[in-house]
């Protein structure tokens, strides 16, 4: 076995300690520890299925070494809660019919969350740029696109959708 090393970081708001293999990626570490909403897609940072939020920015966790998470704040899809209410981004994607196979959806939700956290009312160009790293082969993006525009519009209208 590889030499294991201990790191700690804030995961979904809670300070946690993990044993890591110095070569492993954050994606592998998360999945190994049960955070399986972070999906494996391409391992080259091209599809966004493994997106997590690191210190407020959406990143492809397949390109981040686990040790790079040391001291950072990481949000995974599990961090958006499991209560009766869905996060507004999840709800918008469902309402618009943007969830087909759903494999890209958690990554899509987190890229969107990072975008809306930084700018609650992104314009169309900003949405296109910010969501460009998340591939979806099922929907043709049309309904993802309209979900994002609706969330942005609802923020503009003070939360009413």
């Amino acid at each position, binding site marked *: 076995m590889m030499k294991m090393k201990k790191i700690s970081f804030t995961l979904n708001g809670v300070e946690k300690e993990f044993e890591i293999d110095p070569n492993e990626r954050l994606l592998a570490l998360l999945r190994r520890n049960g955070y399986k909403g972070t999906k494996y897609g391409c391992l080259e940072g091209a599809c966004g*299925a493994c997106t997590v939020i690191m210190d407020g920015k959406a990143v492809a966790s397949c390109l981040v070494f686990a040790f790079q998470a040391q001291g950072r704040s990481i949000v995974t*899809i599990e961090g958006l809660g499991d209560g009766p209410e869905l996060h507004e981004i999840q709800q918008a994607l469902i309402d618009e019919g943007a969830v087909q*196979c759903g494999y890209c959806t958690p990554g899509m939700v987190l890229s969107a969350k990072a975008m809306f956290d930084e700018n609650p009312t992104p314009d169309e160009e900003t949405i296109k740029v910010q969501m460009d790293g998340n591939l979806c082969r099922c929907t*043709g993006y049309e309904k993802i696109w309209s979900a994002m525009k609706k969330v942005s519009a609802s923020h503009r209208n003070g939360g009413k959708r």
Partner: protein
Amino acid sequence: MKPVEKMKVVHQSVKKIDAPALSRGKHLFTGDLTPPHALHIKMLWSPHAHARIKSIDVRAAEKMPGVKCVLYHGNVPRIIHCTAGQGYPEPSPYDTVMFDKKVRYVGDRVAAVAAETPEQALDALDAIKVQYEVLEPVFDYDAALRDGAPVIHDEPDAFVPIPVPYEPKKNIVAKVGMKAGDFEKGMREADFTFDQTFETPYAQHCPIEGYISWAQLDPHGRIVITTSTQVPFHTRRIVARTLDVPVQKIRVIKPRIGGGFGCKQEMLLEDVVAMVALRTRRPAFWALTRAEVFRSGRTRHPMRLRLRYGVKKNGDISAIGLDIINNTGAYGGHGLTVMSCSGSKVLPLYHVENIHFDAKSIYTNLPVGGAYRGFGATQAYFGVESMVDVMAEKIGMDPLRFRKRNHIVSGESHPAFEALGEGKPGAPMTIGSCSLDECIDKGAREIGWDRRTPPSAKTGRFRRGIGMSIHMQGSSVPEIDMGAASIKMNDDGSFNLHVGATDLGTGSDTILAQIAAEELATTADKFIVYSSDTDMTPFDKGAYASSTTYLSGEAVRKTAAKVKEQILKVGAEMLHKNIDEVDVDDAHVVARDGSGKVSYQDIALRSLYEANQFQIAAIESHVTHKSPPPFTAHFAEVEVDMETGKVRVLKYVAAVDCGTAINPQLSEGQTEGAVLNGISYALTEEYRFDESGKMTNPSFSAYNIFSLRDKPEIKTILVPSYEETGPFGAKSVSEISINGPMPSIANAIYNAAGARVYQAPFTQERVWRAIQESKKK
């Protein structure tokens, strides 16, 4: 026939039932369910396109740390099989064994290692010593067919289980064809004739979840395979054969799957995970890397299409000749059926009396062709719908009008329906529902067809053009494929709906619940849907051939109708009425005279606990007798950079007649997904190979599938019709719209630039060359 307006659950955009859990990233996919102590499998792939394995030494690998099992041709049974998931017996060659002494493409299996960690498995692969005798490879159509060409399948045990043409010594996988009228006469009688060749590339489905499977033995020693498949029942049958174990010993479970689009209509990983689990008594897990998905997964068959047409000045098409060479790569599982559909889903679209159709599938030492959304029709429509524009221009007719005067309509038949089946004759069919004219009109209005001007009217560097195409597909494989469903009622008036049908992300679990709910006069959320588990659900052929809504949906409707009879009987007893004096409404049995009603919950409680007890439940099956086509009209507006050849799609319109859209939002989603996949297939997607036959762009970034930023505005228009033979009037929707972008964009490029492209994808270079060519004329 129930009018669509009176339906309460069908034709409603019910939210997809699995969407909340999916959006929360719950553990729903194959890779989320793998036990932590599973062995990891890695494959040694062939570096040669064509070679014999002279010797292979796995002893050092077997002794490596963590290695538990090595599989290669020397230690597994040699059982010839077909990996394509199709009805049995397949119209396809049995030309594959688990591991062979010969490799037939770069990416073919050589040996597998199962170890405690993936790194240990990879290290052990390096320790396997293989000596190859490299053979001359075959990489293109002409090389495969020339006299004395290297024989790719020279193994003596390859065969086809039903009598269809198979000539492996000539590298011919299959032949199909048909004739009607007198093609030569039709060409002679034409005012203008045309003879043009088109080529389409290798392409990959690119589901975001690639191929992934794991297997373990249950406490009784049965093999349980959890896998991302479109065909769980076919997979069970094929694995049983390949491992020489009874079907009874195998259970295949399909959890949620992360997209398929046809590439998972195949038994591709399951034999190996099952064999490792059997040998080691340990769970065994295997997922392909993205590069492996590209190189060793399934692809869209490249085709070379020769189109010959005769047309008269008045717009009659007097003859069509369609000759196809279909490259199936190294193995031929879908070789016959794909090109059969190139004829059967395409030729009937237009009135032409004199028809010549001749298609062959050939082996080459390149990646393996499989099922891919559109299934052969996609490639043929590129040629056909390009030529329709060419003919219309020649006779000076608006291509929209030319299509309207020549396309098939309700009440008509076509000889191709009967002539072209899957290894046997097809089913004769008269077209029932068809709203194609309305699709054309509505699509034309949306794109602004009226403002379309000829290429000669365009000037400047950036020129805009509008193109269109029309299409049909099918719904299910008639007289061959079967789907079944079972429904049982629970204490509270909810139901378990079990279907073999395979939801690969399309939302079929949801629409099947809607169909059951409509028939049972309750709501879709009263159904607990469980699908695709060979131990727990009835049989279904799986998700392919645009059949889940039309075929499996009708099985569900019939099952629900049987359950309804039982509910009515109990309700009538409780209301002291005859069965013909009661009806179902809003989850109640109601007396028609308004004298009383009982709830489904009370009916369930009575039948389970109180009086004349029995389980309200039913199982039904369905086989279709026709394959009613959905129809569509597609329109693209593009901008061509005359200096660089760059093409940008500005707007895309798809007007679709899928009968009754069971769930309009999901039907739109199917259309939009197919359209964007088709657009990137038309503009960027293709396999590139080096001289050794190795694919050189096996990554999302190098292969270049479209992202949100690449997406043009896509407008879907659902145009209703009512297919009498489908559940609540439904036909299929998922495949048809991938056929449109390639010809629509080609026609739009011509309309913009006056230059026609015959080879896809329409890269900058190809478009630029076509522009230079057109300037010479």
